[in-house]
């Protein structure tokens, strides 16, 4: 994990009231999908940064999906790769988040699924390492 200079402010391109006030400090171990091993910065960019999902809710476009358990991440990644195999890579990365990395909020039907809004300046990919590879 690298030493980072973070501002505890969100990027100015976040919509107003984003993240929502109900989001908590980002604490604990989380898992995220990745297309490359070792982890690459591009796998830790939001839809907004990637210029994708223009119709998605604006605040959600600024967040990254993470999972609280590797099992949940594995299940969802398998599901996504069964549907769009070229869009989703085979890797699951594990990271340890703390309050200086941003805010987090549970989202959707899966209680393990969370949205993570990272503070400006957080080198997100440096917080993670690949822990699992799904076979195709």
């Amino acid at each position: 994990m690298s030493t980072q200079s973070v501002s505890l402010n969100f990027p100015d391109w976040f919509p107003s009231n984003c993240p929502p006030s109900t989001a908590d400090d980002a604490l604990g171990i989380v898992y995220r999908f990745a297309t490359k091993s070792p982890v690459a910065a591009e796998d830790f960019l939001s839809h907004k940064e990637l210029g994708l999902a223009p119709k998605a809710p604006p605040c959600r476009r600024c967040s990254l999906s993470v999972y609280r358990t590797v099992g949940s991440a594995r299940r969802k990644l398998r599901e996504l790769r069964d549907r769009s195999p070229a869009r989703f890579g085979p890797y699951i990365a594990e990271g340890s988040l703390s309050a200086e990395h941003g805010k987090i909020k549970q989202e959707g039907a899966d209680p393990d699924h969370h949205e993570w809004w990272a503070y400006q300046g957080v080198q997100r990919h440096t917080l993670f390492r690949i822990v699992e590879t799904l076979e195709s």
Partner: protein
Amino acid sequence: MWEPEGNRIGQDKLGSLEPREVLYEFEGEPLTFVADDPGGEALLLHSLVTFDRTSRYLVSAIDSRILGDLKAGRIDVLSALRQPRCWIADVAEDATIKTVWRIEFALVPEKVLPRPGAMINPDLDPLFRLRLIGSGVGPGRTSAGDVRMAAQAAESGLRGLARLALDEKKKVGAVPGNIRYYSDLPFLFSRAASFEIAFGRPRDRLPGIDEEVFAEMGRLLERGLKAVRANNDGFEPIEGLDTDRTIQLFEVIRALTPPTRGDVERVEIGGEMVGERSGSRVLTRDDRVRSVQRIKASRKAPRKEAPFRVSGVIEEADQGNFCFTLRQLDPSDVPVVGHVTEILFGFEERLYDTVMEAFNSLERMVVVGERVDSQYQALDIKLAVGTAGEESGSVGFGSK
């Protein structure tokens, strides 16, 4: 990036491609959705890849019947997309359409398409599927015997896994349903191409519990396969399983593997139970030989006693756990068993109908059984026709 093969057409020919109904989404982004073409006809869009701030979709013209079948889980996403009128559409960051190609579905690379069996509702994805692979299997070649073999292999393998998984649950006090509930799963679909058969979840769900049991079944299968493929010829109990349960697991592997002769050379197993981590597994004839070797090696140690015969009435039967209780015994001093008033027998699937008929009729039956360690297994069950004394006693080997 893969370049679509087809003629470019005007960006506005398909309309705005604005989602009218989202069928599957992730992170708020519709990945599979319905849009209307300029004439108001339905288009099914499915996200294939993203690149350079662009999303590429496969667009298929569908009718209400296809959409209904897709939403009801009667067809998978791939089948719904495989239509005579297809396009590829690239959509830019601002949701404008950059390029549209009129394409033939067959020219879309398989690696970007949804996998067979992936349903629009993930809850309807196959829990377990089994595919026969071999030179003699395929459209117009698969025999009725192969189809029966596939169904039996799946049912038998799942039954063994369910029995083991439920044993684990019972150890910690949880008794979530019965073996039949977790093994006699509802048929989802079959395919002619290298014959495949798929099964879904039980219809009456036990939320949470089902997932635990099926996950345990998947883990057991993985452990069994790993042990069968381990580099030794003898028998060693799998860590955490005793000898009997290790043998049961090897029996599961054997049931799922292809016969050593015939048209079926390999068997691919997949579905959520198998593929959460690995996707699918291909079982070979070598796996069968190895599992049989392990089972034989385990049986060198004597663990059974001579079969015995006793007559009685099946007063209780548990169709889920494949066991019954025989009472009104004659003689009451049963060979091998001793002086008892009832015997709890386990039985195999082949005796299921007989057991249920006997239970329903309460007719006196003759059971040939054997003691395996501390349990009793029914080997054969027949209607008692003579006097009780003639129906009971020890059974010589080969007398069945």
